[in-house]
Each structure stands twice: as structure tokens, then as C-alpha cells.
């Protein structure tokens, strides 16, 4: 009997896993030296399921087509000076934070997935990781190309690469990714592939990019949604990874659960920057952070963890704390940048009355009680010519590296202080979530390059604020301080005045 023709799935299997072989001239453990030490047990790599059966020819075709479309939009945006059509120049500050804080993470993801794309023993996940490595390179490069046009007109963008390695608040996203990159390949997959891509990136891209569209930034929404179409492939890889690990061996469950708990919390902390963008930085807000959290974590994450419960996996530890914090973090973060505006590479501003009313409406439980008075006090001080600045450096959390601004779950008037002792030295953390992470791997987090401590040690250009800002390559008076009175504002008003003048 003649052999049967291959179905689509078998054909794809030949195109990928059929390529791989067990090495015999070199031991497999030396060819793959890094995928054993984490304690993960894999009995059968061939049980890996490939949900997207994408061969390279199809990859090139779809990705090439997406890129042609995207760059056509970018070219049109630049030719038509689309930057003059955004809702308000304040909006550009979202892009500053994005390029300095998020885009370098895409680069890290590119190199990280090249690592797992080489060093996981199973060929199925390796091919998926390599495609994701390519995709992540796409994301950082398209983001640079999109925001490059804004850089020609707005301050605070030009030194994004230099700043990412140095500026105090950028150590938050940087350390997040350094953490994943320095972990083993399986933890990296759970950290980035599952916790970040599957559980949390929707919160970054979907409501935020919708915000870009609503604020007239067609170039950013185009790269954002275009990138997100790769993201759905990545999400699928992320969920496949977790299911695969949990199906392979029951001993994997506690290890995976620990990673899920850790990376959910790490991701939640980093996303606080996005919370602030959505609630305060979009001149025309689309959705509050709390609403986005409900849709993309409570609802979507709820379905996901219900599904994973059959493997014994639980909802991440402290998920309920994170949900409770959705009432607070955007306000606490924006207040932090407001008082350190002199040391930030984007502009801050006092929310106007209409915006405060919007926040009161979106946060009926907390805003009027805790945060509105804070803005009103500072507004009063501004009026008296005493714009409020914090002139000392803040205490940082040893793990998430955010200033220790977060409050106790049951008392928003009290900062949540936690600490641990290791070898006679104290390490401060901002929450039970961060403390658990520290206590789990103290040798790792005691290495943190904490910007405030580095400044005091003399490793950031000098002892004074101007020395440090110089080390950051911050263009003082242009990149930093309030939007009101900035060169960005002046330029925007000139464009706008031109429009008004010509219209008359």
C-alpha cells in the first residue's frame, strides 16, 4: 500500500521538528547546557503542540506585507506633518516614556528569545522562539522609526538609548528585563512568554494604542496594532509553554507557580507606568486604568486561570492586591513624577478641572478622598508661585526599584514598608509581593543597581543634581520640568496660532 499524503499538521512537523536530530558526536547536555538546572522535568519534547503552523515562507510573506503597510503610514504621517494633528502636545510625552521605557525592552526580548530559540532542547518551541525573536526586533525598530518623526520636533526623545541604561525611573523597566534575561530559559519563557505576553501586554497595547488613535496619532496606533498582531502569536506561544510544562511532570507545578507569582507581580509593577499614561497623560482619555484592568486582567485573566486550574495552577499570589491597587497606582505614580519633574525626561502637568472630574467619576471609591485633595493642594501652591518639588531622592524598592510610594492595601494613607535582613544588611521592599520575590532569591536582588544608591556612591556623574542630569544627557529646561512653559508648549502654540491666524 502506498503511504498516505501528509495532512497540514504532519507536513508542518516535517518542516520543523523533522529537521532536528539527537546529536551523537557531542553529548546533548553540552549542546544544550542551560535547560536542565532550573529543575524543570521534560519527558517528551515531541508532545509540544504548534498552534500556529507558520513556515518561514509564510512568515516572510505576512510580515513583509505588514511592514509595507506600516511604513506607508509612517511616510504619509511624516509628509503630512501628522504631529501637528495630535490632540495636544502633552500627548507627545506618552511617546517619550514609551521610547525610553518600553522600546528597549522589545530589544531585550529579541535577544532573549534568540537565547531560548537556541537553547531549549525541543525543536517546536525553538522555532516559535526564533520567530518571536525576529518579531521583537521588528517591534523595537518600528517603534524607533515611528517616534523618530516626533523626535524631530519634541524634546525628551533624542537620548532614549543613553537614558534607558541610566535614568532613575528607567531602571524599573530595565531591571525587569535584566531579571528575565539573567534567569534560566524556562523561567524566561514563563516570565516573558506567559506572564508578560499572555497575561499583561494586552493592558499595554490594546487600550493604550486605542488611546493613541483617539488622540490623533495614526502612526503610533498603526505600529501598535501591527505589533499586536505578532503578539497574538506570542500569546499562543506563552500559553503553550505553560500547558506543556504542567503536562510534562507534576514536579514542575510548584516551580511554575512560583514563577507565575513572581512575574505577575513584577509585570504589575512595571505596568504602573502604563496606568499613569492612561489616566493622566492622554489629553483625551479613552478608558481608565481600572476599567482596563477589569477587562484585561479580571475578566480575561479569570478565564485563563480557570482553564489552568485543571493542572493545579492557581491565580497568581497577590492578584487581589494588584486588583485593589488598580484604584491607586496611576495617581500615586503621576504624583511621583509631578514632584520629581525636574529629574524626568518628559513633562508633567497639573490635571485641569475637567480631568479631575473625569478621575472622580472613574474612581468614585478613592479619588475624592485621597488624591483630589493632593492635586488641589499643589494647584493652590502653583497659584502662589510655590510649585511643589521634592528636593531629596526617594527610597527605592530593592526589587521593583520604584520609589517606595505604594500604600497598604487597607489604608491608602500609609506607605507599605517591608524589609528583609540578609547577612546583617537590610533590604527594603514596597510590598508583600516584592518582599516575597526578594526573599526567594536574595543573592539575585542584592545585586540591584539602584539609581539612588548609585548616585550617592558617586557613580552617576557627581554629587549634585546638575551633575546627575548631565550624566543622563538630559537637556535641562527642555526635556524636563512642566509642560507649561516648555519649548514643546511654545512650538505647539506657534503651530496652533498659525492655524488660527490663517483661518481668520
Amino acid at each position, binding site marked *: 500500500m502506498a*503511504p*498516505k*499524503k*501528509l495532512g497540514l499538521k504532519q*507536513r508542518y512537523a*516535517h*518542516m520543523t521538528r*523533522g*529537521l*532536528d*536530530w539527537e546529536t551523537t558526536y*557531542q553529548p546533548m547536555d553540552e*549542546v544544550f547546557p*542551560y535547560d536542565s*538546572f532550573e529543575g524543570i522535568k521534560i519527558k517528551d519534547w515531541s508532545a509540544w503542540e504548534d498552534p500556529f503552523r507558520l*513556515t*518561514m*515562507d509564510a512568515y516572510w510573506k505576512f*510580515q*513583509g506585507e505588514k*511592514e509595507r503597510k*506600516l511604513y506607508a503610514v509612517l511616510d504619509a504621517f511624516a509628509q503630512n506633518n501628522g504631529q*501637528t494633528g495630535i490632540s495636544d502636545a502633552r500627548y507627545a510625552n506618552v511617546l517619550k516614556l514609551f521610547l525610553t521605557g518600553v522600546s*528597549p525592552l522589545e*530589544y531585550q526580548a529579541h*535577544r532573549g528569545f*534568540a537565547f531560548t530559540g*537556541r537553547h531549549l532542547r525541543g525543536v517546536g518551541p525553538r522555532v516559535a522562539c*526564533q520567530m518571536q*525573536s*525576529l518579531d521583537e526586533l*521588528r517591534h*523595537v*525598530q*518600528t517603534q524607533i*522609526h515611528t517616534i*523618530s518623526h516626533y523626535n*524631530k*520636533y*519634541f*524634546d525628551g*526623545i*533624542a*537620548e532614549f*538609548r543613553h537614558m534607558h*541604561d*541610566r535614568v532613575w525611573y528607567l*531602571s524599573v523597566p*530595565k531591571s525587569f528585563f535584566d*531579571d528575565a534575561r*539573567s534567569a*534560566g*530559559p524556562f523561567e524566561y519563557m514563563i516570565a516573558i512568554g506567559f506572564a508578560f505576553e499572555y497575561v499583561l501586554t494586552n493592558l499595554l497595547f490594546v487600550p493604550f494604542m486605542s488611546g493613541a488613535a483617539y488622540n490623533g496619532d495614526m502612526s503610533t496606533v498603526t505600529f501598535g496594532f501591527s505589533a499586536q498582531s505578532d503578539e497574538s502569536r506570542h500569546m499562543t506561544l506563552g500559553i503553550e509553554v505553560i500547558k506543556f510544562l504542567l503536562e510534562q511532570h507534576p514536579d514542575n507545578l510548584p516551580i511554575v507557580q512560583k514563577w507565575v507569582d513572581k512575574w505577575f507581580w513584577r509585570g504589575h509593577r512595571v505596568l504602573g507606568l502604563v496606568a499613569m499614561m492612561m489616566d493622566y497623560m492622554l489629553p483625551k482619555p479613552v478608558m481608565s486604568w481600572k476599567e482596563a484592568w477589569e477587562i484585561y486582567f479580571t475578566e480575561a485573566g479569570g478565564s485563563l486561570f480557570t482553564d489552568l486550574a485543571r493542572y493545579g495552577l492557581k491565580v497568581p499570589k497577590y492578584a487581589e492586591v494588584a486588583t485593589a491597587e488598580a484604584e491607586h497606582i496611576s495617581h500615586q505614580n503621576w504624583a511621583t513624577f509631578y514632584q520629581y519633574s525636574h529629574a524626568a525626561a518628559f513633562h508633567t502637568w497639573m490635571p485641569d478641572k475637567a480631568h479631575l472630574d473625569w478621575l472622580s467619576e472613574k474612581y468614585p471609591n478613592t479619588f475624592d478622598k485621597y488624591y483630589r485633595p493632593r492635586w488641589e493642594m499643589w494647584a493652590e501652591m502653583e497659584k502662589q508661585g510655590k510649585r511643589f518639588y521634592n528636593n531629596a531622592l526617594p527610597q527605592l524598592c530593592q526589587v521593583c526599584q520604584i520609589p517606595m510610594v505604594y500604600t497598604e492595601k487597607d489604608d491608602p494613607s500609609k506607605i507599605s514598608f517591608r524589609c528583609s535582613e540578609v547577612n546583617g544588611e537590610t533590604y527594603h521592599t514596597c510590598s508583600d509581593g516584592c518582599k516575597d520575590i526578594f526573599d526567594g532569591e536574595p543573592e539575585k536582588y542584592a545585586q*540591584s*543597581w539602584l539609581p539612588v544608591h*548609585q548616585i550617592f556612591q558617586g557613580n552617576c556623574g557627581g554629587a549634585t543634581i546638575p551633575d546627575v542630569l548631565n550624566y543622563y544627557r538630559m537637556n535641562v529646561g527642555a526635556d524636563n520640568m512642566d509642560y507649561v512653559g516648555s519649548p514643546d508648549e511654545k512650538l505647539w502654540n506657534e*503651530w496652533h496660532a498659525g*492655524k488660527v491666524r*490663517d*483661518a481668520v
Partner: protein
Amino acid sequence: MTVQIKTIDLEPKRQTFGHIARRLGGDKPATRYQEATLDLQATDNFHYKPQWEPEFWHYDTRKTAVVMEDWYKPLDPRQFYYATYNIARANANQAVERNFTFVEDRDLLGKLDPAVKAKLISGLLPIRHLHWGSNMNMSEACQRGYGTAVTAPCIFSAGDHLGMAQIVSRIGLVLDEQTGTALDAAKEAWLNAAEWQGVRKLIEDTFVERDWFKLLVAQTLGVNAVLLDLVYKHADAAWGPAAVPVAMLTEFMADWRAEEGKWSDHVVKTVAAESEANKALISEWAKTWIDRAEEAAGPLATALLGDASAAKTAADAARARARSLGLTL
């Protein structure tokens, strides 16, 4: 009423990013390749030592013995960034599709004598495993390398090798009428046939090489310039009546070698030119891996063509190429 915006108001404040301007020697318009590449990788203030290799930071110049004052000297002459890379490959792949359609519509492989088919199965198809091994090496060079100028083209190359492995696989599926039997037989040859074992041993030995630039030299001057060129460039006579359809179906590989060779030559040449020490190291690596590749290619050339001379031809061409890059062999 007009809402014309005066052009004078739209004079850019700056042309490009600060790190790009410093490299261009002033604030000048930069290309998309430059903005997407230069200084993109993080260099300073890493937080944690990798749990799998704490001797180094995850980006660390010490992961190779060659030393560069600036790893952004070896730029890509093709100026590939993600979009231009993918669009170039999507275009090249349209030709692949046309060629497969041409060959399949006319049943050019199906009509072949079983002996010729058997030779394609044992002599050509196993090369897909060599592409897969090459994919592993280029992924490794990307993850372990230093500086986006070199590492980004490495992941493109990894994608290329996977793509080429899949083109060869498709040839197999045409030969066996989409049943997979030819691919199974070719894998058997790769694993056990005597003429492939030198090649397989060589690529497996590269898998344990931890100096990423040495690996890149082994891959580009050893594997690509000797082994792939032997099969795609010097073995036409082996395929007999199948030579023309094979040439059509592997046109992508021929074009790719010419194009990627320009990149890898430029990288090797630039890094060797940096110092006498680099030149000596790279020369030694090139000599070692070209010699090894020639040795591995001998039995394969004999099986394909009757004697080992094509292996020598390919290796001599690789040596001449290496010398043209400033290496002393």
C-alpha cells in the same frame, strides 16, 4: 478659509537621535538602517549576573577572544533592518513559488529515473539538517554576540537557514508525492550514511563552541563557504538530468549565498582589520574550520561526484576568499 500651516513653523529642531548624531559627526538626517541599528543594545549598568553564566553580563564583550574598540564598525552592507529584510525575502520567495509551480506543473522531478531520485534523496535532501544546524549557530551568534550591527543580521541569517531547510524539505515532498518518505530516508542518511558523518560531526562540534565570533567564522567560512557551496555550487554534475530543476528549486540558496556572503565577508574583514591580534586569531580559526570542512566534504563529494576534487575546489575557493579578507592562511 484655509488651514494651511506655514512651512517655516515646521522646520525640525533636530534631524536624528543623539547617539546617532554622535556617530554621524553631527546632527544630520540618518537612514532608517542607522536609526534601527546603531547603539541599540544596552551597554551599561546591568542589574543581575546571569544564573546560567555569571562570569559575564548577558551582553559582554568578553564572550569572544577578538577585541573591538567599537562593535558598530562591522555594519551590514545590505543595510537590513527588519522591514527591508522581510520584504527582500518575501520578494525572493515569490520566485521560489514560481519555480516550484513550474517544476511541479511539468512533473520535472516525478518523471525522473528512480536512481536519480534516490541520489537526490541521499545526496541533496540531508542538507536540510545542515541548514538547521546552521540556524542553531546563527541564533547562538545573535544571542551571544555583542552589538546590534552584528547580532541583528545573525537572527536574519537564522531565519534564512530555517527557510532554506524548508525549501529543501519541499523538494523532498515533491519527490515523494507529499508522503514524507523521502524526508525520512534523507534523515536516515544524515544520521547514518558514511558520506554525511564528517559533515554531521563538524556541525555538532560547532554546537559546543562558546566563542561566538569563532563560531561565526566557522559557520561562514567553513560551513557556508565549503559545505554549502560544495552542494549548491560544485555538485551540478551529480544530479544528472535533474540538474536544471534542482538549480531552479535552489536558486534562492545561490542568491542568498551571494548576498549574505557580502555581509559575512565584511564583518570578518572589519574585525580582522582591527588589530594584529584579531587577525591572527581569525586567521587561525578560518584555517582550522576550512581544513575541517574540506576533510568533511571529501566523502560527500566522492559520493556525489565520484571523487573528492570538488571538496578541494570549494575549500580552495574558501581559502582564497579568506585571504581576500586580509587573513593569513
